């Protein structure tokens, strides 16, 4: 089954708060060891609609969002609509 997983770190801005909003000032930002992980895989069930993307956060109760994606006309790109449960 095709799948991908990626993680990215949280951060702490140790120096440069407020200053970093302006281009002439720098911020010193450290990445932290607390990371967010995202895993994506294809569906294993036959009746999962071809234009659906299900997003879930299983560490928590009832944290799930199902979307239908559609290509917009012309060069509008792709847009998702949440499907209510």
């Amino acid at each position, binding site marked *: 089954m095709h799948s*991908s*997983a*990626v*993680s*990215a*770190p*949280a*951060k*702490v*801005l*140790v*120096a*440069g*708060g407020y*200053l*970093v*909003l302006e*281009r002439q*000032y*720098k*911020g*010193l*930002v*450290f*990445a*932290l060891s*607390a*990371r*967010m*992980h*995202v*895993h*994506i895989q*294809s*569906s294993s069930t036959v009746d*999962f*609609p071809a*234009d*659906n993307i*299900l*997003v*879930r*956060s*299983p*560490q*928590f*109760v*009832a*944290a799930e*969002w199902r979307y239908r*994606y559609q*290509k917009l006309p*012309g*060069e*509008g*790109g*792709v*847009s*998702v609509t*949440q499907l209510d449960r």
Partner: protein
Amino acid sequence: MGFLVSGECLLSSTFACSSSPSARNAFVEACLNNALTYVSSVAPGNLGPAIVTILADTGYYSQPTEASPAAASVPNSSDFIRFQVPLKDAHKTGLGSSAALVTALTGALLSYYLPKSSYDLSSADGKSRLHNLAQIAHCAAQGKIGSGFDVAAAVHGSCVYTRFSPGILEELGPAGSPSFSRNLRAAVDDQTPSGSPVNGIWDTMILADTLMLPKGIRLLMCDVDCGSETVGMVKKVLTWRKQRPDEADIIWESLAGENAKLQDSLAALVQMQQSEPKMYSDGLKTIAHDFEQSWQHKIWSGEYVKIRKTIFCIRDLLRRMSAQAQVPIEPPPQTELLDACSALPGVLGGVVPGAGGYDAIVLLVVDDDEVLGQLTDFLSLWEGSGTTKVRALDVREERDGVKSEQKDYRPWIS
């Protein structure tokens, strides 16, 4: 039901969830809209159904106390904890990173839908495109253009950051507008090699591998009481800065100077640790065991003393900013706590990070079990004025930004 967007966010607002399970999640939607649009522009045939699982490391949320419902850890999965509660009840730590979520989700979507031949997250090009796309998605989700330091760190790891001009995203137009796909593609593909300003639209500067701590020194974050109203604070400070530019400039320029000194001192310590390891570690041992007055006399390398003084200067300037802008950036309870921690053996100093307020403080400490033990004991007994309990968080600084994972995520993935 509506959007819950967040700036400096907390775990529950990272997921933008309220009590209704079908409440919208602004960050997930913005990632999907932007990443799928980009994928469709690069490889239209590749879109398809998918199941996305989001997991947050333990550092994000508080440890359960004896009083609260226990979080059951799942066998065979040491990194992630299950909470038997809905998101809205997850205690907030003040670490939160919507930027980490947006970066991981955008990176995963690109890696999933595009073949390695056209997108490789581990390459400089992959990081550049991910950076651009994640900045766009994050701003879209927040409904405003922030400085972007958090997305930069999520992509590139620890770094010295100079923001992009907010105007560069004005040409983009909202998602779904007539030339959105073409504009997005152009903005994303515009190369922003880390570390150099470019002639393209992304005039940011991200110096990764430039900001680091020497071995033997670490960051320690201490959670106080979360819920600083960052958006409101930033607004107030910026209003004051506009109204009193001369007053504000004095503080800004002084802070910039002290921040540069801090960066230089850290670099000097890294250099010392590599070229004069004995002097470096003798200095560390002295700091770890002696109280401030004595180690200032004993240490013949001035770098440690310099760093300590620089941090005190930075804090003094932040308190001046607090007073003049009338915003609680380093409010008295945090001053008390920081001063007390800074007096302990092994603590070089600490600050209120980011926009300040009552979010977690960050300390620079000698990475030694005895030092950390004394510190955590001290914190557990801390009863500052008007704050709740203080707790060291199980996090530390990390060099790495975004990366592909080969982990086994079972049983979290269905």
